């Protein structure tokens, strides 16, 4: 039981608000997607504590290379909500002018890498960024997030190995929600899984040893635990890389394109004991940071805010087709100029 903390009451309340906001955004965006306002969306339910803890832990001097399920981290980092939602709704004002999928942020000015769809495709880039930091003798570390499924990829191995060999300021952060899409992370006795192979036989956090550094496993449903472990890792990484495996459960579908009932019986449900929203509400109540009254007023406030924002972005203008040929090369080739004439 956490009794005291290194974060102000205000900070804890903000964190809680962001958890609530993330949850509400999630539900409403799934809805928007069902109604056709959003062609694609990546659900967040189950990842809120990880996201908010990460957002709290990352410092100005760190570089963050996220994956596609990290919307909430940006919220807590204080990235303007308009910046975030223009991307998710692929509007004309999006920093990427709607070129990439929802949740594929690219925000260089905030030290955030360009999210890439191919799973783990950013891990070697992240280590290269860490190398640059070390070469330039800059403070801070690079933290990169990815899923449990990603640990099966070539990129995971190669990035971990490079981090070990060059002793890079790297925090590898696994958001272990126990599933890739339908493939579970570990062997399971659950009947629903009995017909599937698992992603890996070794516990993920232990894989760090193969590369000569440390791995730890933490509770990914408790944002304070995530915050503390991550902040400490960001500090220690300046001396040696580290792997963090944060355990949680993907409460929703993988994306708006699949139906989890096909391959599992959901074991963590909304409002249940292990729902991060419930876990952290209870914790903050026990810490006397949050009252029942706060809970309902925050909920009302966030409900209002998120509805208004989604409404605004659903209606926001989309990028014009005249934008689509630009910025492939700095110096545009002749055939690109010619093809501008083909856009009709």
């Amino acid at each position: 039981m956490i009794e005291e903390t290194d974060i102000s009451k205000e900070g804890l309340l903000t964190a809680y608000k962001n958890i609530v906001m993330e949850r509400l955004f999630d539900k409403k965006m799934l809805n928007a997607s069902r109604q056709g306002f959003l062609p694609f969306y990546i659900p967040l339910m189950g990842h809120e504590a990880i996201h908010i803890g990460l957002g709290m832990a990352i410092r100005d001097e760190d570089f963050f290379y996220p994956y596609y399920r990290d919307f909430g981290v940006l919220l807590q980092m204080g990235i303007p909500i308009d910046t975030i939602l223009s991307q998710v709704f692929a509007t004309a004002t999006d920093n990427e002018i709607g070129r990439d999928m929802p949740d594929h942020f690219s925000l260089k000015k905030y030290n955030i890498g360009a999210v890439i769809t191919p799973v783990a495709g950013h891990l070697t880039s992240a280590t290269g960024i860490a190398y640059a930091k070390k070469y330039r003798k800059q403070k801070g570390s690079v933290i990169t997030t990815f899923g449990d499924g990603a640990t099966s990829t070539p990129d995971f191995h190669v990035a971990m190995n490079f981090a070990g060999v060059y002793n890079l300021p790297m925090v590898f952060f696994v958001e272990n929600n126990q599933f890739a899409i339908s493939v579970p992370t570990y062997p399971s006795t659950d009947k629903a899984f009995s017909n599937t192979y698992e992603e890996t036989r070794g516990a993920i956090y232990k894989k760090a040893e193969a590369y000569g550094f440390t791995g730890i496993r933490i509770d990914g449903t408790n944002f304070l635990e995530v915050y503390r472990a991550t902040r400490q890792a960001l500090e220690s990484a300046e001396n040696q890389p580290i792997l963090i495996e944060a355990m949680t459960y993907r409460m929703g579908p993988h994306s708006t394109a699949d139906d989890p009932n096909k391959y599992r019986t959901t074991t963590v449900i909304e409002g249940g004991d292990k729902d991060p929203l419930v876990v952290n509400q209870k914790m903050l109540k026990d810490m006397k940071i949050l009252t029942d009254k706060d809970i309902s007023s925050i909920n009302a406030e966030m409900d209002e805010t998120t509805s208004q924002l989604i409404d605004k972005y659903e209606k926001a203008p989309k990028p014009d087709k005249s934008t689509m040929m630009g910025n492939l090369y700095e110096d545009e080739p002749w055939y690109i100029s010619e093809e501008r004439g083909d856009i009709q």
Partner: protein
Amino acid sequence: MTQMTMVKALNSGLNNAMEKDDSIILLGEDVGTDGGVFRVTDGLLAKYGRERVVDTPLAELGIVGFGIGMSMAGLKAIPEIQFQDFIYTAMDQIINQMAKLRYRTNGDYTLPMVLRTPYGGGVHGGPYHSQSGEAYFTHTQGLTVVTPSNPYDAKGLLLSSIELNDPVIFLEPKRLYYAGKMDVPDDYYKVDLRKANVIREGDDLTIITYGPAVPLVKSTVEKNNVNAQIIDLRTLSPFDLETIMAGVKKTGKVLIVHEAPKMFGVGAELSATISERAIDYLAAPILRVTGLDIPIPFALEDYYVPNEKRIMAAIEKLLKY
């Protein structure tokens, strides 16, 4: 006969083949319990068990390499790559092992295997769920590259690919997965891999196309009453030279349509081959209408792919020439 979508036809083909031959193994991400993200392998796990319908870890390199090993050992692997866009971590296995094994060992090892993967646009998936990378494979000596344009061909070409004693890249146009149903035999049948399909006769020009672009070309020609011959290649490499040359010599005007980008793409080889052999028959330049030479932008995919307007502009240019 059953009315089937392309997905159903492929599923039926896999089922027929697996029933007949217990050396066939399907493998890939989410092909088992989930039945495939596009449902092509739906129901096969229940019927054939987890030894033959293998859910794999998230590693395309492994999916392909594992399949290669199975086929080296006398099984017949049918790996699935969830989206063609994700195939590139397996490129070394495809180019250096799969495509070259027969040649470099002078046939000591042969490699009957079919690597299936959905390609092209249609799901508004942005730069990484919409790619048309066929040119990477057609340029790789040793591979056979096949792509169907309708449910009947999909099943028949898949079964022929499975019977081939060489590695096949089987590209499934996801745009056409659920684009319509068609009468498809429930039983085993084959469609010749080495024969292009003249899907429409015509005298004024020859349009060469394949896969996802075929229905668009057909509807454009029909709607606008163009007197065009349409050739659906079916197999991109090695392509059916004879049918193409017969068409070119007959009409003297050629349009190539594909969804993949133009530069150094499949259309370039078709154009080069034709003009190399039949320049004196050509009454006009060979034109190409293709996807744009940029990554596929999420919000603007519809402007990226060829459309009726662009095809008609090219046809008119050719007819007037």
